[in-house]
């Protein structure tokens, strides 16, 4: 009896702790949760999580939140790897954007833009099933309707220049934003070299 009584206080807390640890692990394994991560460029954005009656903001990389109303979570790296290793491994190559610039008023590429054709061809080869969008833009010199058309002609010019590189594409979309989507906002009528462009995105 005595022996038994003496043992209890020494062992019981350990057992309780072990039981709590197991419960936490098991609970965690089944839980719904979200974790904010750093982006490829080293920045971190934020997510706003709304559950019945509550709203929480995550804005630091590694910050976690249970989705069963139980509040902030610190998720160890090993747990993240176990839960999300497969999802992270399935991540496709990040989309890449290439900007081709043009001489004023027409469809002649600037000399500086020409090497980008080879860079784009490399990005295409690095993706098993690339899809591509080609969007033409103009500056605000000239009227809207002419610029809409000029944007499209520039996009088609780039599409033709890239014909070889684009062969593996599963889809190509070509569009014009005319002067409505400038890279550098200007007053109407202003010729701005950085806005005379075609943006090609390889996904």
């Amino acid at each position, binding site marked *: 009896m005595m022996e038994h009584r003496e043992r209890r206080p020494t062992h019981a807390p350990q057992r309780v702790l072990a039981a709590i640890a197991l419960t936490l692990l098991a609970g965690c394994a*089944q*839980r*719904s*949760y*979200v*974790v*904010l*991560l*750093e*982006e*490829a460029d080293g920045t*971190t*954005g*934020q*997510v*706003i*999580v*709304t*559950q*019945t009656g509550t709203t929480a903001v*995550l804005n630091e990389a590694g910050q976690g939140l249970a*989705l*069963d*109303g139980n509040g902030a979570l610190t998720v160890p790296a090993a747990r*993240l790897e176990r*839960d*999300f*290793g*497969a*999802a*992270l*491994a*399935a*991540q*496709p*190559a*990040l*989309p890449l954007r290439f900007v081709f610039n043009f001489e004023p008023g027409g469809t002649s590429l600037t000399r500086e833009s020409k090497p980008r054709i080879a860079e784009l061809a490399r990005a295409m080869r690095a*993706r*098993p*099933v690339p*899809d591509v*969008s080609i969007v033409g833009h103009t500056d605000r010199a000239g009227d809207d309707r002419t610029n809409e058309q000029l944007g499209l002609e520039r996009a088609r010019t780039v599409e033709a220049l890239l014909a070889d590189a684009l062969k593996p594409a*599963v*889809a190509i*979309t070509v569009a014009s*934003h*005319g002067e*409505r*989507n400038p890279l550098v906002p200007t007053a109407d009528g202003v010729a701005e070299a950085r806005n005379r462009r075609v943006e090609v*995105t390889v*996904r």
Partner: protein
Amino acid sequence: MRLRPCALVVLLGWSCLATASTDDPIGFVKTVAGEVTVVGKRGTVAATPGVPLELGDIVRTRADGRVGLTLKDDTVLSLGPNSELSLTEFTYAPARGELGLGARLSSGTLQFISGVIARLKPESVSIATPNATIGVRGTRFVVKVP
């Protein structure tokens, strides 16, 4: 006898694909491992790299499955095993300012990397789970649903 329903599904699939081709897909399957399906208007198709995605499609992975998707606005989504993701909203007309992106993770694991819609109009992007809604403000995150 067994082949007939299959042949029918294939034929229906093709005819639906043909009509759907006038609409641009909203994205594509890019990476696949294990068993993954896309369920949508054209029926159920095995996900392989290059399979187009349409609004309303449901992407499902089995116990050995994982899959990576990209959407037209450069959003990148990837799922681990035993996952189900529905593509519930996609509006991408930046020149007209019409933008919206929604998806629902019913089960499993998802990595989300935001694209142009989240950059231009962050309040129009959300990922739903059975008991929470995640608003995206230009970011990368992972989420798990048991």
